[in-house]
Each structure stands twice: as C-alpha cells, then as structure tokens.
C-alpha cells in the first residue's frame, strides 16, 4: 500500500501553496486492489506525483511509504525488484527504446520480472490492434501506436500496482475503450490496484477513490 504523509513537491511550492488539493500536504492512502483517479489541469503536479510514487524523484517534503517503508529507504536492488515485479507504469512520455522493435521493448520489460500469468504479447497486441507493428522499430511507429505498446509493456509484467500517466492521450475512442478493457481485465487478474492521472474527470474505470490535485 502507498501512503502519503504531508507530501508537497518542492518545485511547485510557489504555484500550489495557496491552491486547494486533496493530495498535496495531506495524508492519503492508495490501497492495493483499488482504483484511484488523480485529476488535475496541466502544471499541478500529476506527472510529478506519479514520479514520486515510482521513486524517480525525491524533491518533496513529507513522507511516502510503500508497504510501510519509506520509499527513499529502498536500495537500488530492492527498487529494481519492485519495479519489475510489483509496480508497473505507463509514462506520459512513453519511454520506449527507439532502436528496439515494439516486441523487443515489451519482451525486455517482461524478462526483467518474474514469470507473469498475464496474456501473451501477441494476444494483447491483437486486442489493441498493433499486431502489425510488433516487429517494427519503435521510432518509426506513430505516437498512438507507441502509446498502446507502452500500455502492453506495463501489462506484460507481474504487478500489484499500475501507475498510468495520461495513458490514452493519443488514442481514439475505440482504441481507448479496448485499452481500458485490457487494463481492467489484467488488473483484475493480478488483483492489482491502479492509479491513473489525467487532465479531466473521467469514468474510464470503476474508481474507488478520486482525488483533485
């Protein structure tokens, strides 16, 4: 479980200090097996919060704990294990390796973790209509195709939390719905919690909690 105790981002202190927020400077828990939506306009710290949770940044005041341990206390090896077996993520900027094919990008992430019970890469690619680009280098695919590949990469590994940072920003309605269905079914299968950050209030998933940043 993630717990935030009076967390406030140093970089956004001036901008957010007088703004009402359900998360910043508050005590908040994101429990496993629950779906959480974080809604906020641009520049209010959605990506910042996702990065805090994923332990990519530590420029904040307050404490974030994961499984009752301050996330800053995890050493590099423990963090690698968590990232490859417990917390999956879809970055807003996708972060695929451009020189690898889509299949290689997904396989690499999958191979870093333990064996998962999730659907095969080919089945998930079929679900999201990207079977035809699986063996193409990532850099020649469209942003929408890369975004779907990034979703599959996150779902291919074993996880108990899925962090999504504006995951459908470049998808049409039909592909968005297919991605939602795949994410929902995979989270259910893994009994995983989900934290999604988006610009607007949305009803992609049956949320248990919704916070405004």
């Amino acid at each position, binding site marked *: 479980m993630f717990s935030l105790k009076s967390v406030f981002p140093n970089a956004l202190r001036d901008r957010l200090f007088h703004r009402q927020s359900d998360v910043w400077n508050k005590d908040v828990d994101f429990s496993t097996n629950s779906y959480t939506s974080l809604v906020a306009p641009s520049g209010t710290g959605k*990506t910042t919060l996702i*990065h805090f949770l994923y*332990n*990519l*940044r*530590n*420029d904040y005041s307050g404490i974030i704990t994961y499984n009752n341990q301050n996330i*800053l*206390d*995890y*050493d*590099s*090896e423990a*963090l*690698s*294990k*968590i*990232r*490859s*077996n417990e917390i999956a993520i879809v970055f807003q*900027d996708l*972060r695929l*390796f451009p*020189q*690898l094919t889509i299949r*290689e990008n997904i*396989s*690499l*992430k999958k*191979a*870093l*973790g333990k064996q998962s019970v999730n659907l095969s890469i080919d089945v998930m690619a079929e679900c999201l209509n990207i079977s035809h680009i699986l063996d193409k280098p990532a850099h020649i695919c469209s942003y929408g195709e890369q975004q779907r590949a990034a979703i599959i990469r996150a779902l291919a*590994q074993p996880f108990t939390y899925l962090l999504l940072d504006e995951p459908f920003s470049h998808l049409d309605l039909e592909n968005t719905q297919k991605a939602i269905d795949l994410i929902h079914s995979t989270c259910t299968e893994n009994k995983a919690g989900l934290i999604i950050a988006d610009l607007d209030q949305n009803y992609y998933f049956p949320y248990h909690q919704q916070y405004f940043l």
Partner: protein
Amino acid sequence: MNKSLSILLNKLIRSRAGKAKYITAMFALLLAVILLLMAVQIQVNFNRLLSRENTRDSIANFLVINRELTDANIGNSRLPDSLITDLQKQPFTEAIGTLEASRFKASIESNSSRFPFYTDISFESTPSDFIDVNTTDWHWEEGNTIVPVIVPTQFLDIYNFQFSISQNLPQLTPAIVKMIVFKITIYGQTNKVEFNGRVVGFSDRISSMLVPGSFMQWANQKFATTALTNPSRLIIKTKDPSNPRLVSYLSKKGLKTDSEKTRFSKFRRIIDMAVWILGASGLIMLIFAILIITLFIQLTVTSCKPEIILLITLGCSPKLLNKLLMKRFFVPGLLLVTVGTFATALLQYISYLFLAKQQISIDSLLSPYTLLVACCLVILISVANRFSIMESMNPYKKNSSNGRKWVSK
C-alpha cells in the same frame, strides 16, 4: 540472466567509442601477455638448466674451490675446518662436499700390449651427490677386484685431439674407453696391491680421477703414507654461481674456482638482461592495454547513458547490468590470455626442439610458474574490468534509488 534478456541488453549497450581502439587495445594486451609469459618461461628454463641434477647442463651450479696459490701460502693449501664451516653457513651455499685426496702412491698401466701405457697417478673422491655421472656401477666394497673410475672429459679430449695424433695412436670414443680394463697398483710402505680399473663415466664438473668414497677410505686407511689432514679442495652446490656475494666471498678468503663458471655467469647476465627487457616491455604494454580497456569501458557506459538510465527506470538492476558488462569485457580478456598462453606454449615447444639439436635440454611444456602468471593475469584483468565497470556504473546506481533528482527524459 536468460538468453533473450541478454541478447536485448547487448543490443542496447552497444559501444559507440570506436571498435578500432578496442581492437588495438586487445592486440596490445595479447602481445603483453605473450611477452610476460615468455619472460617468466625463459627465467624458469634458465633456472632449470642451472639446477638440473646429474646432467651435463648443470655445470654452472657446482663449484670446485681451492686456495689461490701464492708465494705466501705455497705448500700450505689445506682448508681449515673454520673456513669450511663458515662457507657452509653462507646463504649462497646449498650443499658442501670435500674432495678427499689419496694419501698413497698409485699407478695405472695397460693390461693390453696393443695400447701400452703406464703412469703414476693420484685419485680423489667426493660424495656421489656432487658427481655429474649417474651410473649403477659407481660403488665399491672391500673384496671387489674392479674399481670404478670417473675420468675428466678433458682427459679424453686431450688424448683424442693431441696425444693420439702426436703418437700415431687410434682415437677412442667414450664407449670404447669404458670397455678398457686397466691395472691399478697401490703401493703401501712394504707391500703393493693390484686391482682392475674401469672407466664408468666422464665428468665435466671435477677435473680429477675419481674413485668411490668407500674405496678411498679403505685405501687411505690401509696404505696412507702421510697423516690425515684437512682437504685442499671443496665442492659446493649453489643456485647462482654468478652471485656477486659468492664471488666477493671467495676473493676475500683467498679462494678461487675455475674460470668456466665466470664465463657462464656472463651468459647469465645476458639472459637476465633479456628477461628483464622482455618482462619490462610486457609489463608496460600490459599497463597501457589495461588503461585503454578501462577507458573503453567507461566510454561505452557513458555513450549508453540514456539506455542505462531507462533500463534502471524500468527495473533492470544495476547488478545485472554490471554482470552483463563484465561478461562483455571479461570474456575477450580471458580468451586473449588463453590465446597468449597457447602461443607461449608453442614458442616453448619450438625452442625445445631447436635447443635439443644443440644438446641443451629444456622442458617441452610450460612451467607451472608460467601458468600461474597466466592465471594472475586473468585475475588482474578481471579486477581491472570489475573496478572500471563499478566506477562507471556508480552514478546510475545512486540515481536509481534515493540519490539526486533524475532528469526525466
């Protein structure tokens, strides 16, 4: 690490630092390995030649020592016990033996009228460990009528290349000489005893007519015409006859040894110098090669910074990346040391064949010391690689957890 992961990681961590530099460094490393191993092997070969027992190669490490005769000590060439004890204590002395001289009159003469000869003679004896002839015939006990004799090789050479020519006599091979049985006569105060003598070997080391110690003791006891005194000559076994401390000790004590050893010590100095040059060149090349490889590893890691950051972000452990880089750089190093060792082994075998034709015997295989040095080189390369990889990966390791703020892209 499973195979597919390894392939993918290898695809990502590709060096952009220039393969030509890497190949040059590896070639330098190979050359350095061969030079170093050759230096060790040559030193070992030389030491083996010095210390080999009972072969003609070992002339250098046995020294026959006697007083340098001057006007002052003429007629008093005996070596006192104190000097023998002192010599025994010196660090360069491995073993010491006395050359016991006969204290009776003796002669040898031919049993055959075809090779008539007669001469007065004296004998010496020394413990078997100091004799460079290995034969089962070298023993005598009371009652035996045949006395084995070892003759200096120079005696046969003088006979074959001077005496026989001037006297119009046939030349004799060592095998023929060994077949000739001659008469030895020992004269006591009032009586004389005759034995049959037979040459059982030729010595390069000791320039005396040698008889077994048991015979010498028996004959001296029975026929000595003079009292027992200290020996005039000693034989010492030393690891390095060109040792300056040995030379200076002998000179200080007024002792001398034969000049053959001095000549040999010159070869020793030349070989030492050659070994030193080989070793030093190898060492310098090794240092440079390892420096270039270290630099190459750091350049590789630096040039793959975005890939390494993203891999760690996605959950690849720094340990796994270390392992991958270690495999990438250590395996070629290991391969090079193996190739270098085989090349040195081949050179050793060629040297063995070549020197065998010159009557010099060295081992056909590499010595354990050379193989040990090869193992040390593997360890050195492994440590240098590990250190370099750890140094290069350290910032990423820190960044992956609670270190500095990451740059997102």
